[in-house]
């Protein structure tokens, strides 16, 4: 005996199995990301005054990625509509754009990660704090280690990172942003890069975005599989094929939806 309602909706619920399944799965995903958002808020409101960093991420890049994901979301629905109209070619084209967008998103994201990992945050013995992109690291003639930071920002180390945005603004006004800065080992009190361990903000940023990126990758793989190797189903059981596209699409929209919240929360606030 076959399992019923694999393609056709059940009368009283109006749904086919996989659609019930994906929505249930999404419900648990809501709780997963919901738990993370709740944690984010708790950590943020619980942080002592002036210690929660802001303005550390690259807003233009984040915006581009947002647009990329939105675009991919619309191509997914358009692809599905095309299938509904029995236009397989068009479906393929739209869905190819989707996959391309996914790849773009991940590539951009990994550059962004790299950028952060090579961004160094140095507290000097003088009590000054400097951070900037690591340009060069080495030993000078005396055998002393040094590093060179490009686009450095400097501000007083007391009171954590709260002064940074102000310092950036001042620098922009005074126009001396681009001077690289060379720091010798002897001047350094402590040094770390912008990795998850840098502070709780980066910790939650990396955790949330990495988990989201994993979802993007997983979703893209599924969509690609249906697009490529799985497409033979279109010939044998088109209804079921359309269902698969719809279900994977629902997941994809959810991933987009999460990003719509992640973007302002992490980049802008």
């Amino acid at each position: 005996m076959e399992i019923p309602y694999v393609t056709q909706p059940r009368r009283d619920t109006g749904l086919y199995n996989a659609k019930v399944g994906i929505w249930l799965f999404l419900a648990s995903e809501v709780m997963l990301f919901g738990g993370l958002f709740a944690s984010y808020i708790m950590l943020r409101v619980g942080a002592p005054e002036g210690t929660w960093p802001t303005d550390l991420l690259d807003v233009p890049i984040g915006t581009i990625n947002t647009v990329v994901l939105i675009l991919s979301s619309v191509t997914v629905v358009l692809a599905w509509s095309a299938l509904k109209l029995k236009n397989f070619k068009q479906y393929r084209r739209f869905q190819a754009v989707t996959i391309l967008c996914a790849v773009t998103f991940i590539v951009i994201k990994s550059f962004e990660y790299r950028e952060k990992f090579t961004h160094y945050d140095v507290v000097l013995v003088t009590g000054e704090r400097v951070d900037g992109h690591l340009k060069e690291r080495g030993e000078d003639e005396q055998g002393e280690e040094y590093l060179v930071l490009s686009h450095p920002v400097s501000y007083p180390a007391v009171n954590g990172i709260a002064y940074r945005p102000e310092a950036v603004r001042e620098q922009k006004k005074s126009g001396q942003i681009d001077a690289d800065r060379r720091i010798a080992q002897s001047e350094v009190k402590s040094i770390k890069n912008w990795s998850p361990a840098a502070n709780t903000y980066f910790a939650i940023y990396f955790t949330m975005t990495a988990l989201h990126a994993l979802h993007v990758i997983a979703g893209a793989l599924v969509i690609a599989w249906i697009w490529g190797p799985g497409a033979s189903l279109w010939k044998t059981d088109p209804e079921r094929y359309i269902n698969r596209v719809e279900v994977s699409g629902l997941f994809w929209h959810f991933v987009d939806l999460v990003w719509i919240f992640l973007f302002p929360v992490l980049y802008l606030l």
Partner: protein
Amino acid sequence: MEATQTQAQRQSVHETHHEQGPGFLRQYIFSTDHKIIGLQYAVTALCFLLIGFFLMCLMSWSKAYDMAAVPVLGPLLETLLGNAAAEGKISPDLYNSFGAMHGTIMVFLAIVPMVFAAFGNYIVPLQIGAVDMAFPRINMASYQFYFLGGVVMLTSFFIPNGAAQAGWTSYSPLATVIETDGQTFWLIGMVLLITSSLLGAVNFIATIIQLRAPGMTWMRMPWFVWVQFVTAFLLLLAFPPLEVAALMQLMDKLVGTSFFLPTGMALTSGEFATAESAAASGGGSALLYQHLFWFLGHPEVYVLILPAMGIVAEVISNHARRPLWGYRTLVYSVLAVGFLSFIVWAHHMYLTGMGTFISAFFQTTTIIISIPSVVILTCLFITLWGGSIRINTPPMLFALAFLPMFGIGGLTGLPLAFNFADLHLHDTYYVIAHFHYVVAPGTIFGLMAGIYFWYPKVTGRLMNDYWGKVHFWASLLFMNIVFMPMFYQGMKGMIRRQHDGGAGYSSARNPDGIGGLDDTVMEFNTVILMGALMLGLAQIPFILNFFLSLKYGEKAASDNPWRATTLDWQTPTPPPHGNFRQPPEVVRGPYDYSLPGAKEDFVPQNQPA
């Protein structure tokens, strides 16, 4: 009619043969058939139950005879676990590992897989008249994740510093700063188990929503199905926040973040010695972990109890030959329990320092949630009234004993629910006794009832009646000998998770201190140890019975030896692939026992009037 049936039968036999084609591996290990998967779950979970029990015996030994070498097993422990069990003694580290792993194994690897995954997989599709689960391959994956999670958990015993040591609750910062990779294993294991549960939960819900046989309306579902439905929702929505907590704790342990390590924590030695990074970012929050954990933790305890209640309800209705009293009330009650269990969690955190309002809120919800439990139990009680009760069979004995045992456990939840009383009882053995009464003589009795009840459906043979009763009476006696003294110990203030069983706080050790634990409290540790060992012995008849009956058990007289009404009994024994000879068509409610005017004292759900 006759002819079509035999034809259908032949066809289904044919199909079974067809399935056997791929061979043993395909059929028993990588099967997608819900019944095989249910059995896989059952056997694995029972093994874990036994492991959890052994761990507990060693802990009981440690509590009764602090730092004395474990008799018989001592050398074995030393070879297996190394330094932590030097000279065959149970060191505090080892005790803590055992405690954490006893809790984890019992909850996540034994009871939930048994009552939810095993019974649910086997019985639910049968009871709703489905051919299989909605997503058979996801079902298989769910078992595989579970198995893998179990392997990871067990492996952690044998790594250099041993398994996790921070309790089954794994509170940060302790769990983070303890120097063992066991915690990392624990976290990874948990992520796997959570994945398994999520897949299972999606599958269960989708199956119940979509695959009910024609005529099986919501209000005609056996109550057991309702219970599994609610349980699946609890797993689906409560587990993800724990997954979040596990990921964040994993980050703290491996990547060096400080989600749960607050500013001002000043470990003076070790890997996490100073929290400078924490200071710079505002640090983390230790209580956040507890919120995330208990957001799962509380629904989880209902995951443990609800399926057991469902089994008990089926058995009681069947053996009293009466419909469940107040079926609708039961359904609404279980829905209410499910809903409320999401908003009571902080009753585990009263003493972290809660203000008046928030604790009033959580006290109120906790008290409210006890009402539907009372209602459920009351309905089961009233079901008995006017019945024709067949008391003396193993499933019914276990089911009946469940009622007062759960009653004790549930009622002792009340003083804990009021935080003013919890002030004295929190983290004492009173809590241990409370929840063991619900999970051990409660849930374990429920699942025993289920095993004795459905055994003939699964195997076509009955388990031995006499040894079943021996098993029951001995278990009942020793369960109470083990757990009853713990109420007294807890009331006296004996704190949990002490490897010396409270000896350090005993008045024998500190004669001039007021409020030390008296000699009775300490002597009870020995009683508990003895009780636990006897409880273990009492399981031997069961284990033998379980395996020997496969071969030598009395053959069940028919497909429906208990003369039950639900669809699971209207299939061939054992049910073939695809379950039913003919697609069943449901025409009546689940419990038409002793219907006036009917020929028999039961009318199956698919039997037309």
